[in-house]
């Protein structure tokens, strides 16, 4: 009896470790953001429409907002563009765009042609804001609540499923909790 106990224990341990590994494998390659539950990083960025106008993160305080990091060079951003337009129409929260490492003229042409889902588009050419937000690949979409806390981050194409299951409940929760 005790002869089998040790191998059995070793097997159980190994099985547990592997099970945990398999369970987390869908997240492989996705980095859990250390920002979740923390105040949104401060930024001051010029807008795409008017390089003289600077939007600061403090101005966005007081109501929840979505922050979408994109670029015309990014294919997954094009894929989610239609969804972003629908999100704008749903009007649950303003969508702030950060045009990351992009060419201004190209970005303007792209938005003029495909429609502009953003309340405002900010320009981040040298990744200063992107690094502060822990961005590592576009598109990335953040949800910031009225208190200015980052509550959710999605990496990759924002699908309807992700929007309805992750973002909408959190936005509803935020408005229900009141301010």
């Amino acid at each position, binding site marked *: 009896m005790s002869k089998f106990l040790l191998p059995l224990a070793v097997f159980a341990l190994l099985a547990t470790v592997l099970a945990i590994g398999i369970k987390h494998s869908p997240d492989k390659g996705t980095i859990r953001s250390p920002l979740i539950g923390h105040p949104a990083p401060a930024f001051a960025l010029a807008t795409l429409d008017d390089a003289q106008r600077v939007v600061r993160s403090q101005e966005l305080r007081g109501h929840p907002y979505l922050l979408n990091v994109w670029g015309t060079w990014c294919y997954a951003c094009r894929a989610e563009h239609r969804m972003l337009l629908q999100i704008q129409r749903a009007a649950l929260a303003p969508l702030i765009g950060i045009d990351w*490492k992009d060419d201004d003229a190209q970005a303007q042409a792209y938005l003029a042609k495909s429609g502009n889902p953003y309340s405002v588009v900010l320009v981040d050419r040298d*990744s200063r804001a992107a690094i502060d937000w822990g961005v590592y690949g576009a598109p990335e979409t953040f949800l910031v609540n009225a208190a200015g806390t980052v509550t959710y981050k999605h990496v990759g194409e924002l699908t309807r499923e992700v929007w309805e299951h992750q973002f909408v409940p959190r936005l509803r929760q935020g408005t229900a909790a009141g301010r």
Partner: protein
Amino acid sequence: MMRVGLATVALWCAAATALAIDPTELPDPTLQARYSALTHELRCVQCQNQSIADSPVGLASDLRAQVREQLLAGKSDEEVRDYMVARYGEFILFRPRYSLRNAWLWLLPLALLLIGAVAALRILRQRAQLLAVDDSTVGEASPLDKNGPA
């Protein structure tokens, strides 16, 4: 001759790409050494098996610029690491930090080695005991020898 030629070309290419990826030169050699060490131990989060020193992608070069800027501003290596970890999590460090959460990773091999050593010792002892007890049969003819085919 052919081989030497090919090797030279390969080496030259490697050197050329290495130079092309990171042309940064800091004014002070010790600063340059710290810069080089840091950029080699920070992961390029976009292309996760390369360090930011080896990666040609845009974000890596922007992260290198951050490292350079902070070193020039007089920040310590640990401050630069903390800056990166606060934004990207510990995943950005190729050499994980020792913490309570990952202590088992460091201690498990030691524990396994210990278990193995104990098991080996026990087996060796058992064998020694068996030999000590069973000495008598050595040299005696076994029943098999008598009945077996000659």
